[in-house]
């Protein structure tokens, strides 16, 4: 290292660009096995001076792109000029067309059944993540109401916790209610990847039927993206995303967002007389107790491009939310005071180092701990009706279940991913996800309850080992094995002697160990036609609520086994063009899911509470496809459709020797045919002003009607009617996207829409959004 330092005085300079020609700011450019290294400047330029003559290896790395290496020979005094082009890496995506939803790039050769949303394209819309996801084939997001309302995400028929969510590859399992799909604005994400059925090894964790990975904008550049929108139902939303990276490699990122809405949209409902219970039919009333707001800040500080770390960030997520609860499971149950609130206080650590010790060995470590709390506040002894009249009762009571119960899950998480590119053709990956959970809760109304509510602890570890083999440009194959481990410790009070007042605690412990595995492969039949096949035997470990209960209506069941599923996918992806302007893409997937031991609720022995049990077997044979067309830079349109044939595969119900009458019946209360159609026009250089653009877009959501209960039973039945929702938007941008103003109309025809039986969604609504974006 002390060798001739400046005697030869060679330099290398140049520009770093992407293969698409975009200047890359903050790329790390350095000589291997030396201390020489710089970042590319705001104009993508770099200069390495004071170099010695001889042979060197120049390496350029930039997040989201493939690392480039060049062998160079320097003569004494030489000033070498070298421009470099980086190719987007394995998880990077390319636009299929001018605009709209992107598909996985051909070159990335991901063999998984994956759809990605190019979130950056939606940054001028007022969508939150859940609505953006709702436009992906195979995905259905069902809402209970307006902004911030409870949502139910389904992916190829898997719902709730069977689908895992990640943010930048970190599981979101226990972020609490303050940082969730229904409140994260689309502007936080750069893109969103939806993995259907088979989840790649680097995402780790235990997903039964797929995963959603939200990728935030973490380029090492300086930028500011600020937006504000307001609209119907007194809805206000603000998002600020900013980051700064200095030449010395110091980086600071700040994301902040806020949502506020009264959700006081009109609904048509039978209003009960507060005293007699008599219904006044089909009254048009406003929702009056549905205010929702949340405020969240995510701050990260650290360094990039250092010898010890390509990126090392220490951060914290702080947030809170408060949601008033307007109705129960049916709209005739109406509340006027009950609300819940929660917060998130989550310190985090992110570390990334490429080429650690040896070339091709990349290490990622993430850790976080959520200290947040959730609380349910129901202490007002009243009964409301939809006319906002109420009866006030004397004494201590509530609208539903008197509670000030406040709990924290004290959830810790460490993930580690080691990726080793042995050579161009072989890559090995090890991934480990470790979770801890220690629920503590109390209710100030019932302080004596606390001593019975002993700590509930569990730990979960998922270890995955994967191998990827790319023998040539056409073919790619990967295989992985996952090892699931869960340990639960649970204390239950019981009566040891049978004498009253005698309480003892029975400590129950149990452990699961399961092995899952999968393979995925893709092959380019033609340069523009990719075939994909994948399979996984997956597990979903029981969640803590299911194991320990929720102290309200759910009793714990420590005996629960993991859910398991055999997931099969077959798909194709075709892109093409005719003429110079017409481009199209077409993809389709066939999926089959054979899931066993679904965890479902049943009544406990004395029929007073629900308890979760491994009850149902379900199969799903599904088809989905998407067709997209674009004409130059002027027009794009696409449509997707999903059909899923979810069938009850439980042949014998527990306690029965006869075949269940519902064997092979369609699973009720689950959308089975749905799709989206969209179209957009883009007009550039409006009124001869350079850098301006006006776009006009339209989206149609279609969901076929479905039955609430088993289709084969009864002849006088309840159903969830067909949904047709028309949305339209106009976006005007100036200065190449620096200033943006957009107007959106949701549910243009003011249709009565339902995702869940009787729970009416908002009618026609308008939103205006202004956005300022600048990056250097």
């Amino acid at each position, binding site marked *: 290292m002390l060798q001739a330092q400046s005697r030869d005085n060679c330099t290398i300079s140049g520009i770093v660009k992407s293969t698409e020609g975009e200047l890359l700011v903050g790329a790390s450019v350095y000589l291997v096995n030396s201390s020489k290294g710089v970042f590319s400047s705001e104009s993508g330029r770099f200069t390495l001076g004071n170099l010695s003559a001889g042979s060197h290896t120049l390496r350029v790395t930039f997040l989201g792109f493939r690392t480039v290496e060049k062998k160079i020979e320097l003569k004494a005094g030489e000033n070498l000029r070298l421009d470099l082009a980086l190719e987007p890496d394995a998880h990077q995506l390319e636009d299929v067309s001018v605009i709209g939803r992107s598909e996985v790039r051909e070159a990335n050769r991901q063999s998984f059944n994956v759809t990605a949303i190019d979130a950056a394209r939606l940054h001028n819309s007022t969508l939150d993540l859940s609505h953006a996801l709702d436009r992906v084939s195979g995905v259905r997001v069902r809402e209970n109401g307006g902004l911030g309302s409870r949502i139910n995400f389904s992916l190829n028929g898997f719902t709730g916790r069977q689908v895992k969510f990640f943010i930048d590859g970190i599981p979101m399992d226990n972020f609490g209610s303050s940082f969730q799909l229904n409140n994260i604005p689309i502007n936080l994400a750069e893109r969103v990847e939806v993995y259907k059925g088979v989840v790649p090894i680097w995402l780790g964790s235990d997903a039964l039927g797929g995963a959603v990975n939200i990728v935030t904008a973490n380029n090492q550049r300086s930028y500011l993206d600020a937006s504000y929108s307001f609209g119907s139902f007194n809805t206000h939303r603000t998002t600020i995303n900013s980051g700064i990276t200095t030449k010395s490699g110091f980086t600071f990122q700040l994301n902040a967002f806020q949502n506020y809405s009264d959700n006081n949209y009109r609904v048509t409902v039978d209003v009960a007389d507060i005293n007699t219970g008599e219904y006044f039919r089909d009254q048009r009333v406003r929702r009056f107790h549905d205010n929702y707001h949340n405020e969240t800040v995510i701050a990260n500080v650290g360094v990039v491009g250092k010898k010890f770390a390509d990126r090392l960030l220490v951060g914290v997520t702080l947030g809170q939310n408060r949601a008033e609860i307007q109705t129960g499971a049916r709209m005739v149950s109406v509340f006027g005071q009950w609300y819940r609130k929660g917060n998130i206080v989550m310190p985090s650590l992110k570390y990334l180092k490429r080429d650690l010790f040896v070339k091709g060995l990349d290490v990622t470590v993430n850790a976080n701990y959520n200290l947040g709390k959730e609380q349910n506040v129901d202490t007002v002894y009243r009964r409301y009706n939809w006319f906002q009249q109420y009866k006030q009762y004397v004494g201590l009571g509530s609208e539903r279940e008197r509670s000030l119960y406040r709990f924290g899950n004290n959830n810790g998480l460490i993930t580690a991913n080691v990726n080793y590119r042995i050579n161009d053709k072989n890559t090995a990956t090890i991934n480990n996800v470790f979770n801890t959970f220690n629920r503590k809760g109390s209710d100030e109304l019932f302080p004596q309850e606390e001593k019975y509510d002993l700590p509930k602890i569990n730990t979960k570890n998922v270890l995955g080992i994967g191998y990827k083999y790319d023998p040539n440009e056409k073919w790619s194959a990967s295989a992985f094995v996952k090892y699931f481990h869960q340990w639960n410790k649970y204390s239950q009070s019981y009566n040891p002697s*049978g004498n009253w007042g005698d309480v003892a605690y029975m400590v129950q412990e149990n452990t699961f160990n399961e092995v899952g595995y999968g393979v995925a492969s893709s092959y380019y039949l033609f340069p523009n036609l990719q075939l994909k096949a994948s399979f996984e035997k997956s597990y979903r470990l029981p969640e803590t609520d299911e194991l320990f209960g929720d102290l309200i209506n759910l009793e714990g069941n420590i005996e629960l086994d993991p859910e398991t599923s055999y997931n099969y996918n077959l798909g194709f992806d075709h892109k093409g063009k005719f003429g110079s302007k017409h481009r199209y893409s077409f993809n389709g997937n066939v999926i089959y899911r054979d899931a066993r031991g679904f965890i479902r609720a049943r009544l406990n022995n004395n029929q007073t509470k629900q308890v979760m049990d491994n009850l149902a077997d379900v199969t799903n044979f599904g088809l989905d496809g998407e067709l997209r067309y674009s004409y130059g830079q002027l027009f794009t349109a696409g449509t997707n459709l999903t059909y899923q044939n979810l069938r009850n595969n439980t042949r014998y119900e527990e306690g029965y020797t006869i075949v269940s009458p519902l064997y092979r019946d369609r699973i009720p209360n689950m959308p089975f045919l749905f799709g989206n159609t969209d179209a957009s026009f883009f007009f550039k250089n409006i009124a001869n002003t350079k850098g301006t653009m006006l776009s006009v877009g339209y989206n149609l959501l279609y969901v076929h009607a479905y039955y609430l209960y088993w289709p084969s039973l009864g002849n006088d039945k309840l159903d969830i009617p067909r949904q047709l929702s028309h949305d339209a938007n106009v976006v005007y941008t100036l200065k190449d996207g620096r200033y943006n103003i957009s107007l959106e109309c949701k549910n243009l025809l003011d249709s009565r829409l339902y995702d869940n039986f009787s729970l009416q969604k908002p009618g026609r609504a308008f939103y205006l959004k202004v956005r300022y974006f600048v990056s250097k």
Partner: protein
Amino acid sequence: MLKSPKLILFAALLASVGMSCSENKTKPEPEPEPQVKPRYVIASAPVGSQGVADYLLTTDDLTQGTISTIGQGIEQDGSYRYYLSHKGKFFSLLYGQGNPGAVTTYRLDDRGKLEKISDFQSETVQVFTVVNDEILTIKVPRSGNESASCFRINTENSQIVGEKQVNIVKLAGNGERAHFTWAKQVGNKVFAPYMSIKGCCSDVFGTAYPDSSWIAVFSYPDLTLEKVIKDNRTSYIGAYFNNGLAVDEKGDVYGFSPAGATNSGARTSTKPSAFVRIKKDATEFDKSYFFNVEEKSGGHHISNQTYIKDGKFLLYMYGNKNATTGARKLAIADVYNQTFTWVTGTPAEISSSSASYNNNTVSDDGKTVYIGLNTAEGSWVYSIDVAGAKATKGLKVEGGQITAIVRVK
């Protein structure tokens, strides 16, 4: 919404070809004759872990044939519903996890089919009973709220005509809560037996008072608490969501206790499962009367009851000795003579049975009573010959388990 357009088309074709070839495996709901025979509503719920709703079928013959909820029956919203017939109407009540919901009122049309006539808003209730021309319901919070809410429902117009709050913590007076198990009209009063429960601490239904029986006596219609009758020879009367009281033709009140009080999950009652009595017009337990059913049955506890006639009860007994959970067996008891007879002819293993609290299927002569029994092989209605304590298999119900059989009268 159509299940499948092709299927519908096929069905329509079949129908157009004629009835001759539409011979189904299960016979459709029998076409009713003009209202002469009693007409029954059978509620059946699918066995499964989701989408479990009741379906209502009607029939006038419980003794033979097959009836099915596959493609037939009126779907009821909500996983748990409860039924009651009064003044010629049929009421379907929701049990909705503490939430208010709709009660649907039906009557029989001239073909004997259920016809919805109205619905109205009601609370989720744990007690419902007939008093005079009205229905009395009681919402009994098991924790949190300190008051039970009583509602009087007019059966003519299906509206709530009166409401009363009862502080059940004060009523219990022992630091626990008085949880009404059921209510029964006795003369011009309402007797509401209750269990004392902790109502908290991960052991809501546990109690420190396992060896007492209580009945709260209310006036009607103003529902004023008049007194609490207490006894210490057995445990609480009835059970959660179960009727423990019956009034015989003489006006005497008989009540049973399962002797099933628990604390932290373990049974702590030390007294036997038995019948006690309150003589007509009295508001004290009759200390001279005690029918120790546990002893007579050889160690079995009573789970539920349906009163037949002349002091005879159909008892739903816990099948295993000393158990207060698990499978049931049937017995006929005579509370006058204190005799106990096991019913023969029932399936060896009964998974569950139709509800006892609304079983009003006793024949007018008191000789026969019907019950729906669910087994691993399927569900049947059994008719029980009271005198011979013998059960005979009758109507088969396909598609799910029988949750209730109610005669509309």
